[in-house]
């Protein structure tokens, strides 16, 4: 894989960088269920209410079900959020995701611990009949043009794209894992007064239905997806840029 994979994979990966560019980290499970959506939020809430006491219905959740079901783009969209102190849970008829709140990335160990708890609650609830996709997504934000700090180059006839608004998306894979990488140098992060303009480096890594069993090996698979995400992220950074992020290694 090392030869064909377009991103150089670092020999060792930091466990922490500072300043941390992560603005959102999401662990997501897409699934099928035989239960109707009407009963699912209530069922889940009974198990998670102590940690996630607050609920917020998302705009899509206010659309009539008949309309939602006719639009495939909505299939995996969450309809409701449950808010806790450090994380939030996004929930829809075919998806559940654990999200680390922005500006406050608690580290992989904390995210992993919370997900282990959530998976065990899901197991006891029993409505997930089959997993469809297990994913890890990290969205990083930089106030400057991040392309200048990456080993990634975009050019036409040998002439590099520079000082232009640029967004590229690529699907990368290695056995059992697939990733969609998006890098853009003109994006707006946040809303309202907290909105900032800059670059995003968005890495989404997932496994397909044949490559995981949520209740048998879900957590090791999340680990593997997270590791792949880190390889892509750190593999893209120029060495001198990484040094400015004060990496801490094990």
């Amino acid at each position: 894989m090392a030869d064909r994979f377009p991103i150089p994979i670092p020999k060792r990966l930091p466990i922490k960088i500072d300043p941390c560019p992560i603005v959102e980290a999401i662990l997501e499970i897409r699934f099928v269920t035989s239960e109707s959506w009407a009963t699912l939020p209530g069922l889940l809430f009974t198990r998670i209410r102590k940690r996630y006491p607050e609920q917020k219905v998302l705009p899509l959740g206010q659309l009539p079900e008949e309309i939602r079901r006719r639009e495939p783009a909505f299939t995996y969209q969450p309809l409701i959020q449950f808010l806790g102190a450090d994380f939030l849970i996004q929930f829809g008829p075919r998806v559940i995701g654990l999200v680390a709140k922005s500006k406050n990335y608690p580290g992989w160990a904390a995210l992993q611990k919370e997900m282990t708890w959530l998976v065990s609650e899901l197991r006891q609830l029993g409505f997930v009949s089959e997993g469809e996709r297990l994913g890890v997504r990290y969205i990083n934000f930089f106030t400057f043009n991040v392309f200048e700090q990456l080993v990634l180059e975009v050019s036409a006839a040998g002439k590099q794209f520079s000082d232009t608004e640029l967004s590229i998306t690529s699907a990368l894979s290695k056995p059992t894992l697939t990733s969609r990488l998006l890098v853009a140098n003109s994006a707006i992060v946040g809303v309202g007064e907290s909105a900032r303009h800059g670059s995003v480096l968005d890495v989404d890594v997932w496994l397909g239905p044949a490559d995981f069993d949520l209740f048998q090996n879900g957590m090791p698979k999340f680990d593997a997806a997270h590791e792949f995400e880190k390889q892509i992220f750190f593999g893209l950074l120029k060495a001198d840029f990484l040094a400015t992020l004060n990496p801490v290694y094990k």
Partner: protein
Amino acid sequence: MTITIPHPQYLIYQLSDNLRADTPSPGVRTPPATESDREELLLSKLGPRGWGRLYHFRYFYSAGWGDGSGKPMSPRALESFYRFLESAQFPKDSTPSVFLTDEGSVELCWEDQKGKSVEVEFRPTDIEFYIESRGTEGSVPSADAKTLAKKLAA
């Protein structure tokens, strides 16, 4: 009249105006990442009708379809269906038909060169098959999808 509902954005960011394609083109649909090969496979083996039926089953048949007890399509069954399709060879004049069963399995049926039916049902962990001309039926684990496809093509 066609009404396009705007897609919700629950992401923490959005691309700037210049990088966004705000006007959706009704004739262009981007397949989910990594699925373009599979869509081509479907089109080449099952034709536009088969592609359309599978797309419909996958996205529009949720829990309770049909008489109220229909299950949604099993992602693992779909995965083994694709693996089977990669190695499957169908007679020139036979167009395979694809179905979704009440249990959420994917079923593929076609006629062999003698005009006899071949039926293959992809379930979450195994594949059941029936070959009318040989009067045989059986099942194999999902992992053997490609081997079964080659056996049925022989």
